[in-house]
């Protein structure tokens, strides 16, 4: 957790930030996947300079309350992420980090910085603590999940974790893959055929119910 800008611990190999700009169902699903798939930094046994620390901004004054709640009743991931997203996540800090990134954007970021940046979520990875930098000079890794289906967040996070293990963290070789593009297409197509499924279910219930009623008579 990152309770304030510039509060990062020193000495880690990479610094990643979960950037959410608004409380939403998408962002809750993203937080669920983050909590599920990224282990706590205290569980890691490697040297600090070999670790990628993943920060989630938290409102400074709310941090003790969150820790207290977490210890009192460890809820399931969804409840925890939902509660965290609505009550504890620091959207102002996340906005500030985004503003720093868009302060002096490289060509690859210019199009994104021109949008309203309200969808998200985003993941930002840098070699040094970056929340305090007014303009973040490249190279860095920025993963925009605003067009990713929430069901694919787990796979994208998994790809992200593979990416940060590469020698060149910024080359996106594990993120911009055909495999993830096919997944995105499959999930979009599944949304299109969902009405067929609902229609078939409706049709079956229409056929089965009168038949059951007739047999009861």
């Amino acid at each position, binding site marked *: 957790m990152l309770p304030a800008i510039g509060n990062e611990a020193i000495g880690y190999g990479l610094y990643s930030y979960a950037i959410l700009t608004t409380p939403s169902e998408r962002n809750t699903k993203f937080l669920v996947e983050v909590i599920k*798939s990224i282990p706590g930094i205290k569980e890691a046994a490697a040297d600090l300079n070999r670790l990628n620390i993943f920060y989630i901004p938290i409102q400074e004054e709310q941090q003790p309350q969150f820790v207290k709640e977490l210890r009192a009743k460890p809820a399931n991931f969804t409840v925890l992420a939902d509660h965290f997203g609505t009550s504890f996540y620091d959207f102002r800090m996340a906005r500030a980090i985004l503003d720093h990134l868009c302060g002096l954007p490289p060509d690859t970021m210019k199009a994104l910085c021109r949008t309203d940046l309200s969808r998200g979520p985003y993941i930002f990875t840098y070699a040094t603590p970056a929340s305090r930098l007014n303009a973040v000079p490249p190279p860095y890794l920025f993963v925009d999940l605003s067009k990713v289906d929430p*069901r*694919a967040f*787990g*796979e994208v996070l*998994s790809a992200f974790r593979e990416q940060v293990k590469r020698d060149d963290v910024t080359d996106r070789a594990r993120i911009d893959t055909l*495999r993830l593009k096919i*997944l995105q297409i*499959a*999930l979009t*197509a*599944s*949304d299109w*055929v*969902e009405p*067929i*499924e609902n229609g*078939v279910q409706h049709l079956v219930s229409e056929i089965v119910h009168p038949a059951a009623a007739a047999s009861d008579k």
Partner: protein
Amino acid sequence: MSKIALTVFSILLAVAYGVAFSQTYPDVAVTGGLATLFAVLGIATVLVAFGVFKLLVWGASRKTGRRAAPRRRRRRA
């Protein structure tokens, strides 16, 4: 090919698509929409494969100049 064979092949293909998907994307749950998509893809694949097969048979019979044996008409009782 009979309708039953087409249905069986469609189901088998849908299951195969589902298995391949869950092997490729272990973090994605195969729920209603995806299952329907695999079923539709299974049916589409079988129909396309059947169409291609018929086309090939027709092409081969044209090349050899042989006509397919005429169907016997059922005698009416």
